[in-house]
């Protein structure tokens, strides 16, 4: 009985023709003399036969296939327009130059960003200083990343 339970996993493989010839021979010999395994094997067979019957798909008509085919052609034509230069059609020279172009494009972007950031950067503003005999007051804007629009006020005795 315990042996039969271990063999049960292989009964399916026997039914499916997935055992090697020696294993198949041994298992067939066992099944021939074992009522439990024979009944389990038959039960698998009935299950699959009934499952096939329960799931038989109705055949689409030629018109329906035509509609599906047209839908695919339309989608595929759209895809071809989107991918105007498919990978498989690139010449070897272009394939080889693609990384170089990509690198050059990255360098150009970095240089442009660098130039723009220099152009846009405001020169550091000198602090406003108010002084009297007793006090000196320095008013200095903080860096934007610290606190947007905040001022630093320093008061010192003269």
């Amino acid at each position: 009985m315990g042996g039969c339970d271990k063999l049960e996993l292989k009964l399916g493989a026997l039914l499916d023709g997935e055992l090697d010839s020696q294993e198949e021979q041994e298992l067939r010999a066992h099944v021939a003399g074992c009522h439990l395994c024979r009944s389990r094997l038959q039960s698998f067979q009935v299950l699959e036969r009934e499952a096939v019957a329960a799931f038989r798909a109705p055949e689409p008509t030629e018109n329906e296939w035509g509609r599906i085919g047209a839908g695919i052609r339309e989608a595929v034509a759209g895809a071809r327009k989107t991918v105007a230069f498919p990978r498989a059609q690139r010449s070897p020279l272009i394939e080889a130059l693609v990384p170089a172009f990509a690198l050059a494009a990255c360098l150009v972007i970095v240089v442009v960003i660098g130039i723009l950031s220099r152009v846009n950067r405001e020169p550091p503003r000198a602090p406003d200083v108010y002084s009297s005999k007793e006090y000196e007051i320095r008013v200095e804007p903080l860096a934007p990343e610290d606190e947007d629009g905040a001022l630093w006020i320093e008061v010192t005795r003269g």
Partner: protein
Amino acid sequence: MAHDLLDAEDLQKVRECLAGNPDAFEVLFNKYRGRIYSLAYRYVQNKEDALEVTQDVFVRAYQALASFQTGSKFYTWLYRIAVNRAIDFVRARRVRPQIEMSEIGDEDLARQSPGPRSPDPAKALDEKELRQKIRSAIGKLSDKHRTVFVLHALENLSYKEIAEVVGCSIGTVMSRLFYARKRLQKELAGYVG
């Protein structure tokens, strides 16, 4: 050997398609449309949705063709797309398969298959109930167990092919299939077996 030839033909068509010949893809569509539709039908369980999934699978396959590894088989790659798409479709629409198919599928099948059917109305009802039970039981399996059962029992793929489609080992296929069968036997106790 015959399989190898078929695989080589598929690969040739894939190459032609990538080289810019869309007719080559039409050949692949005509070759596999029935199998993909049939697989989709096992999941969505009505004709219109199965056709929609089929169309989507081929469109996605075309779009992903450049990523197809020519070392693998085209149809297992296509099956993988189909399984994933069908599972997503069922999740998205929250289809209750056993209900839809019982209403639509059996009528379609009755029109199409004039084969021996029981003349006894009570027995015919039993058959209908049995099919409904089976669909319901298969619908209750987890995605991974249902996929293995459908690919093997209904689509006749070998363990090796299923392993390629699902992306697991042959041993895993065997154990998932075993679990699926045991689960179905339990669910269908008194009806089948």
